[in-house]
């Protein structure tokens, strides 16, 4: 039955090459920890992706309760954490995942750097990877404000002052992020929410797709 459905779709769309491309490639010995334990350093990239997936899923569940408004944001986080079944676990995963993803992407970057794996022909994939690093830092920065507690508020104030110190366009950047050149308030929270939940994830998905397509086209760099 399933086979017939598959054949019906495949006959029309020729989907086989799509999944064969992902499934049907050889994994070389030098990246396989089963052969050389030191090859565990090749796990960092995959684990970064794994934590990103955790972040996406836990974040989706968090938005079911979170209210991006200065009156209710903190109350909704508190409610989620104390009243909602498993709310503490879901928020905990999102909170700690934000730290773990930074650790993993840092290790992944160092692995690629010290192995010189970014050299020709993989320059573009490195650039996309560093952009991913920036996007994830941006997600960390914008997500920090959302619980609207004291540390979030004051850290964001400092962050916005740093943005303001940019020569020539500082005030414009700050206004774009905070919604006002001086006030950190209701608009700041909604803007950070929009950036954290819509803008940056969209960029993240695009860059991730590019990152993975490139690694499939070029393969993993050879052993040193």
């Amino acid at each position, binding site marked *: 039955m399933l086979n017939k459905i598959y054949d019906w779709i495949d006959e029309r769309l020729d989907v086989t090459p799509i999944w064969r491309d992902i*499934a049907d*490639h050889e994994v070389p010995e030098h990246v396989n920890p089963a*052969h050389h334990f030191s090859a565990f350093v090749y796990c960092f990239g995959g684990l970064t992706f794994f934590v990103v997936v955790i972040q996406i899923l836990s974040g989706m569940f968090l938005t079911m309760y979170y209210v991006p408004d200065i009156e209710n944001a903190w109350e909704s986080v*508190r409610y989620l954490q104390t009243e909602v079944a498993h709310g503490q676990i879901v928020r905990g*995963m999102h909170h700690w995942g934000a730290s773990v993803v930074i650790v993993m992407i840092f290790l992944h970057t160092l692995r690629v750097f010290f192995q010189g794996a970014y050299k020709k022909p*993989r320059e573009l994939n490195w*650039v996309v990877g560093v952009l991913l690093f920036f996007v994830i830092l941006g997600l*960390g920065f914008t997500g920090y404000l959302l619980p609207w507690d*004291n540390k979030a508020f004051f850290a964001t104030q400092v962050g916005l002052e740093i943005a303001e110190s940019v020569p020539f366009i500082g005030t414009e950047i700050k206004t774009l992020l905070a919604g006002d050149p001086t006030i*950190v308030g209701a608009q700041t929270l909604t803007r950070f929410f929009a950036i954290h939940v819509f803008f940056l994830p969209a960029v993240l998905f695009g860059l991730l797709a590019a990152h993975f397509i490139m690694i499939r086209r070029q393969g993993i760099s050879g052993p040193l």
Partner: protein
Amino acid sequence: MQKGKGMKFVGDSRIKVGPKQTIPKDYSEYPGRTEPFWPNFLLKEWLVGAVFLIGFLCLVAAHPSPLEIKADPNTSGYIPLPDWYFLFLYELLKYEFAAAEYVVIGTIGIPGLAFGALLLAPFLDSKPGRRPTQRPIAVILMLLAVVSVFWLTYESASAVNWEERAEYSVSNMTEVEVDKDHAGYEVYANNCMSCHGDSLQGVPGMAPDLVDLPYDAAAIKDIAQNGIGEMPADMFTGSEEELNQLADFILTASGGEAAEGEGESSGSEDSSEGEDSAE
């Protein structure tokens, strides 16, 4: 060419082979034991992921994510602290050459240079040799950067008074149901609330909470008028009747009587010491 499930693939056959090949020798040309990604390797990957997930969930279960008191722009003396992975950038701004009129160097200059170099690393370090020994400058610069990041993070984190910060945490917040119809509530609101909070919870860095006080009514009246520890005298201004109402309000709301205060947490002992010093 045949289409569909019967299509034959050899290794990375979707990467075209030709004379204009810019891609280096495929790793399948190195002698070794390769294995198919699907399903052999993915099963092992899945195991690594499962072990990782268990560790991660242990972390989540052991440490509930922190939440501080609701944002209050008027909190005086609050020292801003970013998440730990921004601490190194934050610490940079404390150096003289990157602060005050040179702050642009600390906010944009040095981080921009470092992250810009990271972004463009393949073009700055463009020789073909991949081994660290073949590109000493790039490797040394990266090591220096990593050491600086660790050092700055350590410097920043070690200067933080974590115990003081914990006072702002919701989990350390003492909550009391306040009876707003009580005669003493208005007296409390006029005289005490600005320092001790709207529900006796205290204000971190300013005044302690008034929950489970080890005092009786007479002592509370005395403290309200004459102060205690860091609390100055004459914070209460009003009639004797209002003073009685206030003491009664605080005692009923906080639920603590002098007799119950015995043998309680260290917090009450601290308060008694404060009483001694005030006398």
